[in-house]
């Protein structure tokens, strides 16, 4: 990648995400219209002065819906990723640190989860629980924790062979203390990278579930569901789909890019190449 993109990419992606997060927080102040109740007279307007991104078939302002939809997408991403990271890290630490039978048992469970395409599995679970925000979040956590457990386990196994872990045990520190104080902080940088990239992935998966009708229920604005809403009008009013689609793409790309940049920044081997 060109050095200039590399250099500014991280700033741009952080800036963009910060902007989107701020807009989502202050959605009530920023959005020009009510996202849920439109004027039926103003149906299917193209972008104009009153509705910068146009209106949908119910006369609802697409810009306002995108702004409010950011709340849903971001909160799903953040809730799912933080829960998955917590669960995955705890399980990975136990598995990697103690090894043996515990590790074997945990890893076979993780393997069985990873054997299914995760979106399909989330779809199945969401279908089982029924549609809705909470159920979608639960379904996504169930499929999302496994890679974190894997990553943490591998990092811990690496660390366990390190002299300073042996030294800590040799100095009489208990297992829990060694895990929390010496092992965990050393797993943070790969974890941060994976969680950042994971945010983008979860937002995409949530949009997918909502698109298929398993996520947030109308009239709550959600990007994935907005795509579904617009698919009948793709020939006559493509902007109904284009703008939410673009938002999903931008957010996912920004998180992915941020994740990549963090990896480059945190991995000392990569750093040497860049310098």
């Amino acid at each position, binding site marked *: 990648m060109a050095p200039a993109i590399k250099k500014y990419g991280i700033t741009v992606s952080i800036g963009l995400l910060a902007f989107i997060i701020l807009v989502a927080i202050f959605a009530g102040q920023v959005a020009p219209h009510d996202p849920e109740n439109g004027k039926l007279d103003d149906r299917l307007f193209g972008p104009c002065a009153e509705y910068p991104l146009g209106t949908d078939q119910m006369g609802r302002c697409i810009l306002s819906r995108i702004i409010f939809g950011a709340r849903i997408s971001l909160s799903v991403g953040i809730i799912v990723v933080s829960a998955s990271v917590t669960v995955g890290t705890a399980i990975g630490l136990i598995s990697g640190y103690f*090894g*043996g039978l515990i590790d074997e048992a945990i890893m076979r469970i993780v393997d069985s989860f990873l054997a299914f395409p995760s979106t399909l599995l989330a779809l199945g679970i969401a279908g089982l629980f029924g549609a809705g925000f909470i159920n979608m979040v639960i379904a996504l956590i169930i499929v999302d924790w496994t890679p974190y457990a894997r990553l943490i386990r591998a990092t811990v196994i690496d660390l366990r062979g*390190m*002299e*300073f872990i*042996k*030294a*800590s*045990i*040799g*100095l*009489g*520190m*208990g297992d829990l*203390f060694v895990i929390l*104080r*010496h092992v965990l*902080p*050393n797993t*943070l940088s790969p974890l941060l990278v994976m969680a950042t990239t994971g945010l983008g992935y979860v937002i995409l998966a949530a949009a997918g579930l909502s698109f298929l009708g398993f996520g947030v229920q109308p009239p709550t604005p959600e990007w994935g569901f907005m795509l579904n809403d617009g698919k009948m009008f793709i020939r006559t009013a493509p902007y109904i789909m284009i703008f939410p689609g673009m938002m999903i793409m931008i957010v996912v790309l920004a998180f992915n890019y941020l994740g990549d940049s963090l990896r480059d920044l945190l991995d000392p081997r990569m750093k040497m190449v860049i310098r």
Partner: protein
Amino acid sequence: MITDERPGENRPLVEVYSLKVVFPTDDGIVRAIDTMDLSIREGEKLGLIGESGCGKTVFGHAIMRLLEDTTKVTGNIVFRGKALYSLDRESMRRLRGKEIGMILQNPGASLNPVLTVGSQVSEVLVLHKGLKKRTAWDRVVGLLGRVRIPEPERRAGEYPHQFSGGMKERAVIAMGIASEPVMIIADEPTKGLDVTVKRKIVRLLKEVTVEKTMLIITHDLDVAEEVCDRIAVMYAGELVEIAPRGAMFERQLHPYVQGFFQSLPDRGLKPIPGMSPSLIHLPEGCRFHPRCNRATGRCRTEHPEMIDTGDGRCVRCFLYA
């Protein structure tokens, strides 16, 4: 059991009874330590010497019960009247660091890279001395000063990567002595240090362990000569000779030990022919016989036992039977 306890001397602090350590690997069973009997007296500095892979580090870890779970240990090690391999995990953990301090080889890797050096030393104080984090800090600075780290107040807040190799070793020593243990196990404390730094570290180690019992594991005879009262030499997983320092440096009894001393640069640089046997496929009879120029028919078939030759010396060789 060979006891070299003599009247008027301190009682033994550590007694090792027919210790055997084996661990399974993909290539076969490694007999890392084969029937070791040894005692370390209170206040004594014992040097455990041998080439790489002879089992000396395994012995250090065996005392601390730091071996992997797959390792099979038989026999026992008695420390201050407690049979270590009969203790439960929690009692063993309380003993580590508090009563036996450890200075591991490879100072570069013995410190956690993401924590400041001071906080790592303070952990030991908080854990074993029951100090509060804030009060521990003064002690940390004191300890770092004691191991001659310049500007200890500032250095305590720095990370391991800001330390040089010698400084890291000093910090590791500070951690080892922080809880004022009665015994220190120093595993290759001078590995990877250059000669001038090495000398300073050895002097420091001697200084901070006065009146402590120390097991120093090394392949460096200079270190052993400087620090130890008594020297034990290991070959292929077993002890082959034990002698007081003076006697050992004056005259070595076991042909391997003679060869080991002569192989060093300032003692002739004469290598011992052949290779150390693998701990998986050990030779019959005396383990050194394939490389020994004084081997007889008996050496090939019969395994020699430790022989007490008097004056606190023991040797595992038929020449002295």
